[in-house]
């Protein structure tokens, strides 16, 4: 194969020099976006860097550099390099894996760096049988050929590991393909923004929605079903740090409940390829009061601001929230006021989510109070993510194969010399040569020992 005959374009992309250049360029340019804040408003850059520099930055797409045309071109060149480079070399790897090692010249075997010759008892054929049996007992299945008055045995292990490199290179392409498939920009380009998107929605408790709002342009994206928030809560550690944010979500199709799940951070809900992540919340200054007459079982739920009196006429009750303690915007305790007009009104503190039992002349009541929240959901549909995961898995497997496994070959030549039978063992490995030398000498020692034991 001569390089001059090749198309210069092909030759360029087949070169590892270009790969080194592109890897370093990707590394160097990636630094920019870690120093210059990304995705700020145009005004921010003018204020920080002055109008001239800001204009230059906008031209070069620096404020969103990882999605910029030039960064995409770099990644494209990198992929092309990877493809061409691998295509160029795979035939050679294929040849190395499939070649007929019984064709190797006996004189070459005699000169191998890892080799050992010694005499043994028995005829050539007997020794050949014995050697083959011994090697196969050690996991080296041999093939055999008679050649130039000698018997040649060959066995190999891990030939396929020569493809490890290409598993790694392919894995990178698979990951990039996954990134493209899952990219909202591509979805838009093909005119189907529903295909892949990222967005969010704020859902107050009790409310539902058929759409979410895209991060890219703030436009609504149709879900194809309805999502409802039934309940939101925050749990705290004893020291007051938030321990968990959780939402009870319901998925409805045509008004029918099809799925209900409690989500937490790190435990999203997935329905029809769309994932809902717990990402934020918004407390309101409205509260949900639930009261039940324990004798009759009748109950009533009210949404109310603080300091407003609620009247439940049929039950002859008046109640409300007269005060509260908050941490930030989150209420820690409510002060409840409650009366059936048959005795002094009851006043007591109640924590959100707890129940209070109120004994009154008119009967016994259970009351609970809770702040109204909206849950902030991040919503993503990424049909490429499985490609990315498969690519990642392939990469780890490929790296392991490429780095830690090797292609090992072993030959045995049995011939008659001056009336004696002589065995030559020879071998090589494409990696971890030291380790192979040890395996080889152990094998030869074992063979000698086994042979003398006969």
């Amino acid at each position, binding site marked *: 194969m001569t390089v001059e005959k090749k198309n210069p374009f092909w030759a360029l992309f087949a070169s590892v020099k270009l790969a080194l250049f592109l*890897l370093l360029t990707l590394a160097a340019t990636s630094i920019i976006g870690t120093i210059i804040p*990304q995705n700020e408003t145009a005004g921010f850059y003018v204020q920080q860097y002055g109008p001239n520099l800001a204009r230059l930055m906008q031209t070069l797409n620096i404020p969103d550099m990882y999605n910029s045309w030039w960064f995409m071109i770099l990644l494209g060149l990198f992929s092309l390099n990877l493809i061409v480079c691998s295509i160029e070399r795979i035939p050679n790897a294929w040849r190395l894996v499939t070649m007929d090692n019984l064709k190797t010249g006996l004189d070459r075997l005699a000169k191998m760096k890892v080799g050992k010759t010694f005499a043994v008892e028995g005829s050539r054929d007997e020794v050949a049988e014995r050697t083959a049996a011994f090697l196969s007992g050690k996991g080296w299945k041999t093939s055999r050929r008679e050649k130039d008055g000698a018997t040649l045995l060959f066995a190999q292990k891990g030939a396929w590991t020569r493809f490890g490199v290409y598993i790694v290179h392919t894995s990178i392409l698979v990951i990039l393909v996954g990134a493209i498939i899952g990219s909202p920009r591509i979805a838009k380009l093909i005119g189907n923004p529903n295909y892949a998107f990222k967005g969010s929605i704020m859902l107050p408790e009790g409310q539902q929605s058929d759409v979410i709002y895209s991060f890219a342009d703030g436009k609504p994206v149709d879900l194809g079903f309805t999502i409802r928030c039934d309940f939101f809560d925050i749990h705290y550690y004893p*020291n007051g740090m938030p321990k*968990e944010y959780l939402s009870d979500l319901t998925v409805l199709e045509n008004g029918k409940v099809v799925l209900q799940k409690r989500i937490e951070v790190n435990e999203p809900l997935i329905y029809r390829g769309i994932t809902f*992540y717990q990402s934020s919340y918004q407390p309101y200054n409205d509260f949900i009061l639930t009261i039940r007459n324990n004798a009759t079982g009748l109950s009533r739920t009210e949404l109310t601001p603080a300091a407003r009196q609620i009247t439940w006429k049929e039950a002859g009750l008046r109640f409300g929230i007269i005060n509260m303690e908050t941490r930030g915007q989150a209420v820690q305790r409510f002060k409840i006021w409650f009366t059936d007009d048959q005795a002094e009104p009851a006043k007591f503190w109640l924590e959100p989510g707890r129940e209070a039992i109120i004994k009154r002349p008119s009967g016994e009541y259970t009351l609970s109070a809770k702040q109204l929240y909206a849950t902030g959901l991040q919503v993503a549909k990424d049909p490429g993510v499985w490609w990315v995961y498969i690519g990642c898995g392939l990469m780890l497997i490929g790296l392991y194969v490429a*780095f830690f496994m090797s292609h090992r070959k072993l030959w045995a030549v049995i011939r008659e010399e001056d009336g004696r039978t002589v065995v030559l063992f020879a071998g090589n490995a494409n990696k971890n040569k030291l380790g192979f030398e040890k395996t080889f000498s152990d094998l030869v020692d074992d063979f000698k020992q086994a042979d003398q034991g006969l």
Partner: protein
Amino acid sequence: MNSSQFFGITTLAYLLSSAFYIALFIFKNKKIGPIGTALCALGTLTLTVAMGLRWQESYQLGIGHAPLTNMYESLVFFAWCIGAFYLFMEFRFKNRVIGAFVVPFAFVAMAYASFSKTMNQEISPLIPALQSNWLIAHVLTCFIGYGAFAMAAGLGVMYLLKKSALAKKLPEDSLTGSLPELRFIDDMTYKTIVFGFLWLSAGIITGAIWANEAWGTYWSWDPKETWSIITWFLYATTLHARFTRGWSGTRIAWLAILGFISVFFTYFGVNYLLSGLHSYGSS
């Protein structure tokens, strides 16, 4: 005894171990080598116990989680990785002088974790985003890689020292005489980088999976992610330069050092100089 006492013993053991290894390097007195090894092993063992105790203590506080969740805990684990990885390499390659270039990293990590004023050593509960097994997998894999890269950088420094001594034709009994042969250092550097690269790749991948579980994006180019991929690109370049263009020796030694600077920046620089999702690490 509680975990902090064991952390203290570890710091001391790594300090003394470094001193003995450096003494071995300078005075070439082979007898003190095993003391360095014993101290390093002791330090790593007490560190293992300390981390186990800390884990247990976190359960007693009712917030149980593996000790791998903030800057302090990750630094301590970094020290553990360096100690353990170094001991493994010493055992495997039967060479002690390298300890003088590697064990000090473990000591510095412990000392910084223990004495820095900005370091919060308390066992604190996990905010919701950090409550994920992927976080544990992520920290574990990253720091095994970082431990290897620290070792590679130590080997790089060693290579350059030896090389310059040879260039100056310093006599065999001079300071650098006790260093192993250039070919041996070079080979170890390469092997160490290969090992680190596999773990760094796994670290980036587990991080991406965690991000996807928690936020719905496996990659968002936040500064920490970006720096980790920069580091990955650098080591990928180093490896390709070696096995396809035959680079070795001085150039690989420099690249090993440069790579570790990038690791260091990914780990510290980003927390202190840049902002992003990972800034919890600075607490």
